[in-house]
């Protein structure tokens, strides 16, 4: 059932792969027009969280919602409002760009020309007949990003969107995220690039071992980590916060003040 235009919601979502817990029950909300970044070491559960929201894997417990639609109970309605950029390519390499654009346009219920236009806007208008196999990793990423944001999406989820991109490509990703935010979409992305996080995120969730150990603005996280807050530049501060929260003993931050392990963020 639709609970209203609430962007992205995770309520007590947990995941186990067999006997191995991958995600502790976590709760997180991304409001429309808000950008939240997930940071943390490999294996922290960032991708698992995003893939549950995209409906690619199924949660073992809890409820994940996109635009108010439960991704497990109403997957098609939820995905209709979702743009998702996976970490892996996610389509066959032999796929021709124009064919993919037509498919995504049909899926989102927009005219086929809109897909071609989105690619043209991304500077890929002359590559409609090219198979992805003949494109660079950065170009492929731009194709998928352009198509992920096609149509009236209310939520955008990106898993390591800047990975393998050059400076220009990374700026394209940041522009796409800013554009989605301007359109009122809730944006949740995972990244190891702290510069992206510093430039884009309204809030940052720090994940360790399947838990969100802290979530808040840069200043709130700095406070949590006991690091003096300064306005600029944010990136070194985020790095210090990251190191303190991720590499330090997590229990040291297990205070009622900011830590959200197993609780609401």
């Amino acid at each position, binding site marked *: 059932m639709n609970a209203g235009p609430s962007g992205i919601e995770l309520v007590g979502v947990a995941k186990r792969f067999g006997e191995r817990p991958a995600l502790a029950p976590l709760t997180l909300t991304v409001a429309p027009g808000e950008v939240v970044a997930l940071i943390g070491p490999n294996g922290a559960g960032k991708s698992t969280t995003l893939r549950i929201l995209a409906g690619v*894997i199924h949660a073992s417990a809890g409820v994940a919602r996109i635009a108010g639609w439960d991704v497990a109970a109403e997957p098609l309605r939820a995905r209709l409002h*979702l743009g998702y950029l996976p970490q892996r390519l996610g389509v066959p390499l032999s796929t*021709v760009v124009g064919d993919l654009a037509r*498919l995504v346009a049909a899926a989102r219920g927009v005219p086929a020309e809109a897909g071609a236009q989105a690619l043209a806007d991304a500077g890929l208008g002359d590559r409609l007949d090219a198979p992805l196999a003949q494109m660079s990793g950065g170009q492929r990423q731009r194709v998928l990003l352009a198509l992920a944001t096609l149509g009236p999406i209310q939520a955008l989820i990106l898993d390591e969107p800047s990975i393998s991109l050059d400076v220009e490509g990374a700026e394209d990703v940041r522009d796409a995220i800013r554009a989605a935010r301007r359109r009122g979409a809730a944006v949740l992305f995972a990244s190891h690039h702290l510069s992206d996080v510093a430039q884009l995120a309204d809030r940052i969730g720090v994940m360790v071992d399947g838990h969100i150990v802290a979530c808040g603005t840069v200043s709130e996280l700095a406070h949590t980590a006991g690091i003096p807050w300064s306005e600029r530049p944010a990136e070194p501060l985020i790095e210090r916060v990251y190191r303190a929260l991720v590499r330090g003993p997590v229990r040291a931050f297990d205070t009622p003040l900011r830590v959200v392990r197993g609780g609401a963020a």
Partner: protein
Amino acid sequence: MTHAALFRFEWAAARRGRIVPWFAAGFALAAVGVALAGLSAGGVVRVQGFARTSVSLLQLTLWTVPMLALLLGAVQGAECQELEFLAALPAPRSRLVFGRWAAWTLALTAALVTGFGAAGLVIGTLAGAADALRYLALIGIAAALLAAGLALGLWIGVAARSRARAVGVAVAVWFALVIGADLVGIALLAALPARDATWGLTALLIANPVDAARALGLGLFGADVVAGPTGAALRRLLGGQGAVLLAAALVTWIIVPLRLAGRRFARQDL
């Protein structure tokens, strides 16, 4: 999202693949080769007619088409695990599987029709058009077996989750269907009284798409004429409704694995 959009997407991919023209050429060479080889033992190189070519080609088809379809289906099914971007689109995941099956079935059927059709033109020109309908029936049976093999292969691929495992299981299933079932049949005949063995063999025919296609083919070609006592026994075994029963079994072998593959893909984590 409509079935049509997914079908067009998968069809475009299947059509561009180099595999289709190669298979068309392979089918054509096989058909012409069988037509020529049938009479070469008599010391002359002459093209045999449609009836004999069809029966000879049936056996070849029963070995090669399931192998081709199972392997291709298994690889395509295993690849579904990697379609994370497509799986996040607002379409039921089962439609991805169905679109893939439909596109590859059409592409390979086109290869089959092109290959056997080209050979048919040669046979018709050199040996006459008598029994051409039986040859067309053979193409139809091969297409049905192809569709069933692809559906079964897709299910194997989706369930196996890796290409290597999917291919291994597909080869094992092919062996079981093409050779293992015959061994079971022989064992049944040896071990059971004639009446019970008859029921057992009938069940085996229905439980195995390759045997169903074989029996259907022999029946359509006048089994007692072209396949001797074996064919006559087969006709007695199946009775008047035999062809309908076998065709229904083949269709079931398309629908059931396809539904199982779609359901499995919809429920599993990618």
